[in-house]
């Protein structure tokens, strides 16, 4: 897949994307280390290698645009204007920041769904509300290839297309849904072609190529913002790790997809930037140090926050006895 021939973003944007990608990678790893230490075992769904997709998208959104991440890369949500690294770390460590990443509707975050797929129709509702209230906001809804099979996604796309809503659906296609591979789930390889069935523009992109991903995201988001209606992007990537940490991965041959390591968006993008002359070896070292420092300070800050008693939240809202 080639990068679309669009104008290169400014140096400032290129470097911001790099810094965000680096922050996502290092931050998520740090959080995972803390969580493992606390529980004595690694757990959680990790997404290193897939971050370029949300990061590229989030760098095209405004504070009030709506956005739903795939659960595996929720941490990247800090890159949305209005949210901060502190919000992402607070959520990861069970603290309550001013703007909970998972649910701050005024910043376009309206929750995820434990039942994968369902959130798609809620974000369509947000898109409808944005149109009726003439806010001008766009909505980007990312979910995994597995979740994208579910019925609500179909209904979401039917309505979005029929009403020409300002919403972009993105499939973060890492080829697996838990232990079930793409081979068992699809009779197509390019999931973006599904868009044709709804009458939506659709595009496949290498989701591990930050530059391509950014340009495709920008093209679709600009188009959507200008009133062009919904579209579907399928961003190909690879789940480098297990479904959850500690999952023995009996469902796939050992080492399957290890060659994807060489498509890891972080070193790949770094190389691109150096070839473009935007980033030097010294810059890389400096940014690593800066990002590490920022993550560590923020973690300390978050750890000193009190753990909220969510029980009171629950009981306060009971309607007819407990």
């Amino acid at each position, binding site marked *: 897949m080639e990068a679309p021939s669009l104008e290169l973003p400014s140096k400032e944007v290129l470097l911001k994307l790099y810094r965000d990608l680096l922050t996502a990678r290092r931050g998520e790893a740090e959080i995972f280390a803390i969580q493992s230490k606390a529980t004595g075992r690694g757990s959680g769904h990790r997404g290193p290698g897939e971050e370029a997709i949300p990061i590229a998208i989030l760098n095209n959104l405004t504070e009030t645009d709506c956005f739903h991440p795939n659960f595996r890369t929720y941490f990247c949500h800090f890159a949305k204007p209005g949210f901060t690294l502190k919000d992402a770390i607070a959520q990861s460590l069970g603290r309550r920041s001013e703007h909970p990443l998972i649910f701050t509707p005024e910043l376009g975050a309206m929750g995820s*769904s434990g039942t994968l797929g369902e959130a798609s129709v809620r974000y369509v509702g947000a898109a409808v*509300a944005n149109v009726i209230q003439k806010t001008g906001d766009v909505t980007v809804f990312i979910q995994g290839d597995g979740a994208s099979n579910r019925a609500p996604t179909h209904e979401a796309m039917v309505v979005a297309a029929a009403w020409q809503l300002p919403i972009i659906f993105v499939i973060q296609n890492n080829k697996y849904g838990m232990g079930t591979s793409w081979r068992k789930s699809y009779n197509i390889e390019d999931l973006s072609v599904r868009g044709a069935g709804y009458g939506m523009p659709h595009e496949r992109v290498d989701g591990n190529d930050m530059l391509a991903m950014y340009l495709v995201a920008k093209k679709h988001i600009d188009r959507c913002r200008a009133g062009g209606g919904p579209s579907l992007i399928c961003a190909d990537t690879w789940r480098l790790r297990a479904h959850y940490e500690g999952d023995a991965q009996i469902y796939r041959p050992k080492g399957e997809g290890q060659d994807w390591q060489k498509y890891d968006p972080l070193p790949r993008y770094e190389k691109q930037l150096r070839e473009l002359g935007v980033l030097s070896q010294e810059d890389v070292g400096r940014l690593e140090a800066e990002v590490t420092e920022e993550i560590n300070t923020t973690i300390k800050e978050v750890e000193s926050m009190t753990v909220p008693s969510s029980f009171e939240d629950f009981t306060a*809202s009971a309607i007819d006895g407990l």
Partner: protein
Amino acid sequence: MAEIRYIEALNQAFREEMRRDEKVVMWGEDIISMNDVHGQTRDIYDEFGGDRIKDTPICEQAIAGMTIGAAYRGLRPIGIYMNAGFSLCAFDGLFLKLGCKSVGRYVPGDIPATIYGVIAGPIGDGDNDHGMSPESLYAHAPYLKIVMPSTPYDVKGLVKSAIRDDNPVMVWDHAWNFYQGHKDGKIERMANVQEVPEEEYLIPLGKADVKREGTDITIVTYSFQVHNALAAAYNLAEEGISAEVVDLRTIVPLDVDAIVDSVKKTGRLLIVHEAMKRAGFAGEILFRISEHSPDLIPSLKSPFRRLAGWNLPLVNRPELVPTMGTIMSTVKEMV
């Protein structure tokens, strides 16, 4: 005061709330093109235009999701289901996301969403999926208020309150209310008409209404069965039995005080609902009475009973649900 039909009262409720608050919007299947089949949404498109009322494709899950998502983003939407049974296509959205407010590991605050749908009952379209009563399924969720009206006056005041509520309310409306009602001991076509005030009024959610006073037995019921109960009570009075009919109007919140007051007075309790008996709402009512007044149930003059739909799919067989006749015979066995 003008005497109006049930559907007209409901239509007035929708239109008054849409006039009052431009954030009130509604969507559902054929709510413009066929006025929601029974006329509930008549003239709304003409008055308010396409931003405020929308016909959707056939997409029950999207109707739920859109209602929730739009409520998060500042609107006060009403999601309309052509039939209550169809809402079960969207059980995830309605039960888990609206009813349990789940959005991840976090409980959001207000969700000013209303869900409206029609129970066709045992004839109507003639199958279970159109006809069934889903209220017990939804009553299991912590955050769903559930409104089940029976008269023109009530539906107007209750639906207006439902729309204004800052949290999820479901209105499951029985189609038989649209076309028939009790009159002088009979169920008659077009009898569900009532004088409804021209000036605005609201009926708070969670307040039962004693539709007929009596001294020998309390019949606790809601929705269209109120009409069967009232017709039965009328006839029972001719036979010397004085039955009190308590219309719950909302099953969540449940007006336990009103039920207990009535049962204390009459000393007998019959609960009537159209939904299937097993795990039906009657069991919940009984427990709530017992938790509220532990001595009341043991002191009853005869064992409490329930009349409910058979534990069978509701396929075009009116005798599968309580009728005026079965209510009368059950009361006579109890008194």
